[in-house]
């Protein structure tokens, strides 16, 4: 955030000594803000003021990273509190919690779930990104747990949840090369923890009782010149954790205080207390508002489907339309007699249309030519959904080999394209579909002669 003349003025000695060549400190400050003169022209600026000024050019919220290679992820670096102002840049990541006191079957089950929940949705790979490994007192089992997760073949980053320095050192000897997150520093151990994290620039979790203590602790850690931090929102209560998540983000971005300019971690597993649906509710809340790493008890499709969908939506660029890949999608297992339906590649339109086609239960080939990611009418107006575009799309796809049916249904709103398409596609019958997607089920069922 650039500083205004007023902000800079507050840092001057306000003596109007004129040595800078300006009549007043205010006039000087204003010129500095406008970029017309260097701040160093005032010989009376305090060290602290200079530091503040140079800080003002660094981002309010630091972008940090963890993991290595395929499992490397970035967090933080956000610049706004609401996504309509500017894109949220680094999506939150989901972790699953393991601990040394868990029975082997439970660990195996979680690992199996993590393997199972791994899919691609609109070009994005969806999976658990982090294994959170919690130490509760049994070192041998803890190290065995780490080895087990490591041997599982899962591509995950690690978060070592362990405050015991000696255990942590041994754990790091196992996975230290993979740049795990170390969690975490407390007011009692932070010096040693920083010592441990600093060499390999490991992301260091910071944990305290309440925001005041957390703030103080971060200040102390920063004094040790360490700034690869991840702030814990605490587990005292849901209300506190949410307040803390909001306050941390707001203190950084609105109050422009970089002490809290770091991403946060929320131990949702602790807050939800074993209630899976509550875990989904809380994970949704912290995905919307300011959680950077969300630790869950487990990951299955009931959790993944809503959470990854929500995350994908919240972290899209508000300026850029979300698009689905232009191609033919088989809906309701279409065969070589199923009709062809055309819509656009704007994700919202595509999803609504595909949802309605699914609801109709009529086997259909749903195609979306490259229409620039616009809605039907916008694409048409921009010339991106024309008769020739559709004809070309049909020809270039292999749809003519997939179905013998030559019925092509187009959106009712672009009925004018019928003749153009038929000119370009001899042998096809263009049928005008309904104006609204919600009328598709009835339309398709009537057309196919089903009840």
């Amino acid at each position, binding site marked *: 955030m650039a500083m*205004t003349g*007023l902000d800079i003025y507050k840092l001057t000695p306000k003596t109007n000594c004129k040595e800078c060549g300006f009549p007043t400190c205010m006039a000087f400050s*204003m010129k500095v803000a406008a970029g017309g003169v260097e701040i160093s022209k005032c010989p009376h600026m305090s060290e602290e003021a200079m530091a503040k000024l140079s800080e003002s050019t660094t981002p309010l919220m630091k972008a940090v990273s963890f993991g290595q290679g395929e499992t490397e992820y970035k967090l933080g670096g956000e610049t706004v509190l609401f996504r309509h102002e500017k894109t949220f840049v680094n999506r939150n990541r989901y972790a699953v919690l393991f601990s040394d006191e868990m029975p082997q079957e439970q660990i195996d089950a979680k690992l199996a779930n993590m393997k199972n929940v791994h899919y691609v949705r609109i070009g994005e790979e969806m999976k658990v990104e982090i294994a959170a490994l919690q130490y509760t007192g049994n070192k041998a089992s803890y190290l065995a747990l780490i080895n087990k997760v490591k041997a599982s073949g899962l591509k995950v980053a690690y978060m070592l949840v362990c405050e015991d320095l000696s255990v942590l050192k041994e754990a790091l000897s196992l996975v230290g090369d993979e740049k795990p997150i170390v969690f975490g520093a407390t007011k009692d151990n932070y010096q040693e923890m920083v010592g441990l994290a600093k060499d390999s620039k490991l992301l260091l979790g910071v944990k305290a009782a309440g925001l005041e203590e957390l703030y103080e602790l971060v200040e102390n850690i920063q004094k040790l010149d360490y700034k690869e931090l991840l702030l814990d929102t605490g587990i005292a209560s849901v209300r506190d954790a949410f307040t803390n998540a909001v306050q941390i983000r707001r203190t950084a971005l609105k109050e422009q205080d970089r002490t809290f300019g770091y991403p946060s971690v929320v131990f949702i597993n602790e807050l939800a207390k074993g209630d899976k649906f509550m875990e989904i509710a809380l994970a949704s809340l912290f995905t919307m508002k300011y959680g950077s790493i969300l630790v869950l008890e487990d990951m299955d499709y009931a959790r993944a489907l809503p959470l990854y969908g929500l995350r994908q939506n919240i972290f899209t660029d508000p300026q850029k339309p979300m698009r689905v890949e232009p191609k033919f999608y088989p809906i309701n297992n279409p065969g070589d007699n199923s009709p062809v339906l055309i819509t656009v590649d704007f994700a919202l339109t595509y999803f609504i249309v595909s949802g309605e086609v699914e609801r109709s239960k009529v086997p259909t080939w749903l195609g979306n030519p490259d229409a620039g990611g616009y809605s039907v009418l916008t694409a048409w107006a921009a010339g991106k959904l024309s008769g020739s575009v559709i004809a070309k799309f049909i020809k270039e796809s292999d749809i003519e080999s997939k179905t013998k049916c030559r019925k092509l249904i187009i959106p009712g709103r672009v009925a004018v394209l019928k003749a153009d398409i038929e000119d370009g596609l001899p042998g096809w019958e263009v049928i005008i579909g309904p104006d609204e997607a919600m009328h598709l089920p009835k339309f398709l069922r009537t057309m196919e002669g089903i009840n």
Partner: protein
Amino acid sequence: MERFLVIGERIHCISPVIRQAIADRNSAPILQRAKEQLDAGAVYLDLNIGPAERDGEEVMAWAVRLLQENFDNVPLCLDTANKKAIESGIKVYNRSKGKPIINSADAGPRLGLLEVAAANDAMAIALCAKEGIPTGVEERIMYCTEMLEKAMTLGIDPMDLLFDPLFLVIKGMQDKAQEVLETIRQITEMGLRSNAGLSNVSNGAPKHVRPIIDATYCAMAMQCGLTAAIVNPCDPRLMETIKTCDMIKGNMLYADSYLEL
């Protein structure tokens, strides 16, 4: 961002009707002008009682009560050079709808009004002038910073000051128009709020042209960052322009009927 602040100018002792009404303590004409302006979209009303050297304290208190009692504590701009009158007006002022605005302090003889503002937690219009007409952007900004510094030592929140670059009549001083706009731009860049006394900019121009000059000048000033103006809210062209600028600047959300609000 904040909506543009429209201050209605029509309760002014320069008008014979108002002057007479004040002299007679006749409320009807004053209330009528207040109602017209509020209906037309004014947020604050300017209350100019003139120099009122003799009975200023009594007049101001009477008029503040009169307007606030009749119009749900409408926020007011207390407009007089008489410091005592301003103090007596603030004494009876109800601030539930907004702080009183003192109109106006300057960098010269009226600098003391900033102290009144500080002592009473009031806002103030701060005219970027000392004696006579400032000669250019630099001089205006110098006065601006002088007043700002004074205000800050008095403990006034800079956001409680509306810096007025001193708008000048176009006809005769056309060459100054750009200076005024540039001053607003610089005031805005400093993170400060500004005000325009738009009433006189079109003086002397043909009657049908005046609203066009007023509205256009206001629009250009808003683009430079102007945050408030003392205007005639009963001028529909001007009010439509202000609303449209507010909408384009994102200070309010668009709806087809936005002009009707």
